Every structure is written in C-alpha cells, then in structure tokens.
C-alpha cells in the first residue's frame, strides 16, 4: 500500500510541471482488448495496435484543450456519434476534476507542513 502511494505521489509530482494545460483527445480506430490485470496496458501500445490495422484508419474524433486562463479550444469530427461525443465530454470532466483534486491536495499538504 505504502509503495503504491509513494509511486502515485512521484507520478503526481512529475505531472505538476504541466498542470497549466489540459489536453483531451478522442481517437477512433480498431480496438479489441483482451488483456488482464496481470499485464497492464500502456496507451501507446493500444494506439500502435490500432494503427497496425491497415483496413481502419485511426482518426481524431474530438480534441479539447483547456488553458489555465480559461481559454478552451475544441475540435469535433463531423461524423462523431452522440455516444462518442458524450464519452469525450466525460473525459474532459474527469480530467478537470482529477487535476483540481490533485492541486487541492498539494495545497493542503503544503499548508499542513508549513503549520508544523
């Protein structure tokens, strides 16, 4: 448990540098995953697998970039379905919430340490 927590903290610390921007990209490609927990997947592997299928071209369905100053740039493919759009919107929400929770956590921890 503690090792896992330490890894998570390290990962979070690495990401702090680029917290000013949030990029969300939704792709469309041929994906069929049968992996189990024993072999965790990396997204890069998934993408290369999707791109490996010659019959289906991988394309970007939607992309949203949110800056810390409030600027939002969004792109949606004209063929995007309603479910795909909702999935993208959920991703934007999840990304924003996760980032906000992380920033709040770091802020509170720094505050507590300063109090000590």
């Amino acid at each position, binding site marked *: 448990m503690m090792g896992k*927590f330490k890894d998570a903290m390290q990962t979070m610390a690495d990401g*702090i540098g680029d917290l000013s921007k949030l990029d969300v990209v939704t792709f469309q490609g041929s994906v069929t995953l*049968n992996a189990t927990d024993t072999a965790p997947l990396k997204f890069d*592997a*998934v993408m290369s697998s999707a791109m490996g299928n010659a019959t289906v071209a991988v394309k970007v369905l939607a992309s949203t970039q949110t800056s810390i100053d409030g600027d939002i740039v969004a792109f949606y493919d004209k063929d995007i379905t309603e479910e795909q759009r909702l999935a993208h919107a959920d991703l934007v929400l*999840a*990304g924003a919430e996760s980032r906000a929770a992380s920033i709040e956590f770091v802020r509170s*921890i720094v505050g507590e340490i300063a109090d000590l």
Partner: protein
Amino acid sequence: MDDKFGIIDKLGRGLDASVSKHYLPNATLASDNPNKTDSSAYIRAIRARLIELGYLGEGHKFANRHNPQTDRILIKKIKQFQHDAGITQDGWAGKLTWRVLECLVSFENQQSPALWGTVWRKAASEKWRSLWQQSTQENQHHIWLLKGEVLQNKTVMRAVYCRLYTLGFFTDWDKHRIHTKTIINPSENADFQNAIDQFCVFAKQLKLVKNACSGLDINLLNAMFEYDNIVARLGDNTHFAPAFTAYPNTIEAIARVELWLLGYDISPGKEQTIRRATRRFKKRTFASVSKTQLAVRQFYSDYPVVRLSDNENDKIYDERSDNRQPLNAALMAAFSALSTSIEVTDSDNESLNASVSQLWQSKSKQNALRTQFNKLANGIFDGLKRMVSWLFGAVKRVLEKTKEVIANIARYISKKARTCYLSVVKAFDIVYSGMSYLKGHAFHYGAPSKTCFAHDNDFDQFCCIDSKALPHQISFDRTQYGFQAKLYAAGLTIVGHLLRIAQRIVRTVSSPVGWLLALLSLANVANAIKAINQQISLVEKYELDVTHRKSLFKTRIS
C-alpha cells in the same frame, strides 16, 4: 520635576477617592498580617461567623470562592454587618470587623460585653479601662460606655439570639435556627422573648444575676456572654442539680460547646446522632447513637481523673450501663478547669520535663503512652476506613442509578464504532482504488473491450474508441472510467484529512500543553472524520468489491 510630582499627587488623590468611594479596600484598616486577611481560611472563618449570625444563608458555607458572585455577596453582607454594628462600612473584613465578630460569636475570647465598646469604637482610654477593672459589680453598669446603644445594636441582638439558640433556650432546634429573615426584636418575636425569659430564670438560679430581671438588660447580657462563669457555676453541684432538672437541654448544649472547644468530634447547637452498626448472631443491625454521649464517654476515657473525683451524690457515668446520666457537676468542673488559661513559667517547663523523664522510667507508664498512641493511630485509620467505605458506597450508588444510562452510552458507542469501522474499511478501499488511477495504465472494461481510456502525468486524457463499438458499450465504459476518476478525487481528499489528523497528533505529542491541544484537536479530528464520511457517501455507487483478487478486505461488512 514639578510635572512628575503633579502626576504623583493626581494619582494619590485618585487612590484616596477610590478608597473613600469603597472601590478599593482601606488598607489602613487591614490586619497587620496581610497573609491572614488574604488567606482562604480567613475568608472561610469570616463567612462561617456571618452564617452563624444569620447574615449569610447556610448555602454559603460551601460556596465556591472562585465564583465572583460569591465574593460580591460576601462584601455586601460584610457591609451590612458593619452598618448594623455601627463601624466603618467599607466591605473590608479587616482587624476591627474581625474583633467585633469575635466579640459576638466567640465562646472563648472577649467575654465581657462591657469591653466591647472599647473594641468597637476605640473610644476607651487606659484611664477608663482601669476604672472599669477597679469597679465593683454594683456600679459597673454606671460606667457602661454604650449602655443604651449596645442593647439597640442589631448585631448584638443577633448575637444574643444565636447564643440563646446554641445554649438550647429555644424550644425547637430546627424551627428557631437563625437565618437572614429571622426577626431579632424580642417584642415582635415571642419565641425570642420567651428564650430571654428562660435565660433570666436560669441565670437567677445560677446566681449570675442578683435581682429578678425583666427582659434583656446589661446585667443579663454580661451573664449571657461571660460564658466561663456559667460553666464555673455549673461545676458546683448545688447549682448543677436544680439547673439540670429544669434545663436538661441547656446543660447538654453547654457540654457540647465545651467538648467542641476541646476538639472532640461534635458541633455546638443541635444534638447530632450517628448510625452505628452492631452484629448479633451474624445479623448486622444499625442504631442511632447520640454524638454527645459518645464524646462524653471519650472525654471520660481521656481524663479518667474526672471519674475518680466523682462523689457518691453525683450520677457517675458507668461504662457498663449507658442508661446512667454521664453529665454531672464534676464534668462541668473539669471543663471549667480546662478552659482556665494557665500561664506557663520556666519552673513549669522544668516540672514538665521532670514528669516526662519520670514517665519514661516507668514501664507501665510507657505502655500507657504506647496505648494512647495506638489509639490515636487507630482513630486515624478508622477515619480513613470510614471515608473509603463511604466513597465506595457513593460510587456504587451512583453506578446503580446510572446503570441504564451507561448501558445506553455503551450501545451508542458500539453502534458508532461499527459505522466508523465500515467507514474506515471503505475509506481504505477508496484510497487504494483511487491511487491505481494515477499509475498511467490504460483502462478498459469487459473482455473483449471496444474502448480504451488513459491519462498521462498532467491529467491530459486520451481515449480510443473502436468504430464498431455499440452505443451501450461506450456508455458503460465511459461511466466506469468517470467513476474511477471520482474515486481518485475522493481518495485524495481522504488522504488529505488523514494527514491533517496525523499532523495534529504530532503537534499534540510535541507540544508542552499537549493535553490541552489534544482536547482542542478532538473537535477538529471529529470534523475530519465527518469529511471523510462525506466523501464516502459522495461515492454513492461505491461498494466493497470483496471478490476482487486484490481486495484488502475479504469479508463483506454490513
């Protein structure tokens, strides 16, 4: 320099004004020994005397002095007393107030009302004092300084009431006990007048007053407060026998006062009883025993010489028979002898030393001394035993009375503990699941899965959706991923609260006022736990997945 003195003058004038308006105590009237006036024992003594004179209620006997209201009431009553006594009213119980109280209440000191005027008004000169001492009984009342005033003085009348009550001249101990609203004017209070008349007859019997008196006058006042004279007269059997026949309550009350003065476990005034246990045929029975009887018995045992000096006409106390009257003239004579102040000279000291040396030479006297010490030690041990058994009984009674309340509290705590345990288990699982979100692995749900979700270190999100994925598959997978993100947020909040609790514990342990901080932190810890619970309740859909291979908790809790 002039300015400086001007400020000091101004300050001095301000202080004088404060003293004159009674905002500050008048230091010039205070006792020579500041420790005496400041000590809580002194305040208690003042309070006890004011209660005795009926200025304060009985409830103030054990009043907590840390309550500012208590001191305000005390000061108010001291002022009232000073007003009634006709002395400076400053609310400051200094030397003069103390002396006046001693005159009125004490059975030992200031027993001559004729001298009270000198004490109160500081009016008497040395010349007057010598004149008084040389005067005969017949002409004493002619030189009484405050003759008229003393008998009209409210405090004196209260003291008279109190004295007559303590000496048992009232018919009912409970009904006639002095209190703040007692009418102290004999003409308006028939019981008081009756008590005065009774004392008149009593004093006449003891030949304390020469002529038959009508009401309270100076001679009667002198007879009443010259207490040692009363005891001395009762030491003579010719006076004792008729007095005992007519006033048995008074004789007992006087015996109580004397025994109290000698330090026995008894208080003056109303007769008190204690419950004593006796064991007969393995059966324990309780009986009420008079404390006066016990104290007199103890006195006889401590001063056996008194019993030896009894003559046949006296009703001698016999240990074998408790029914016989232990009060007699010899006892009163012994009291009188013990209360007479003895001046110790060097020769007395020498004779004392000689007696002690002699005591050590005799084996039997050494044994007697050892027995006395043993008795003393046993007495202390008995007292302790009684106190412990009383405490034990009190705790037992309280526990019996609050048994149901304690059981309810225990039930409540156990219920809360169960809820808390469930919260703790859930909180750990949420944190564990939430932290796995950070690993950067791709998330896919179901097998085979048609969607894949991932994020990188700065929470940029990526998703790859199969073109053949059905809408319900996409919907299920995105909900799962969204929930995972929520778990992460909730887990982080919980860890934040836990760290805050840990930080408070560290601070509490390292602080010199740890216990105080611990108490203060309890409220904050409770808030943190509440916040954790809130996080758990926010993740409404979350249930412990005990079937999961990596699940920390293998048993479902309900």
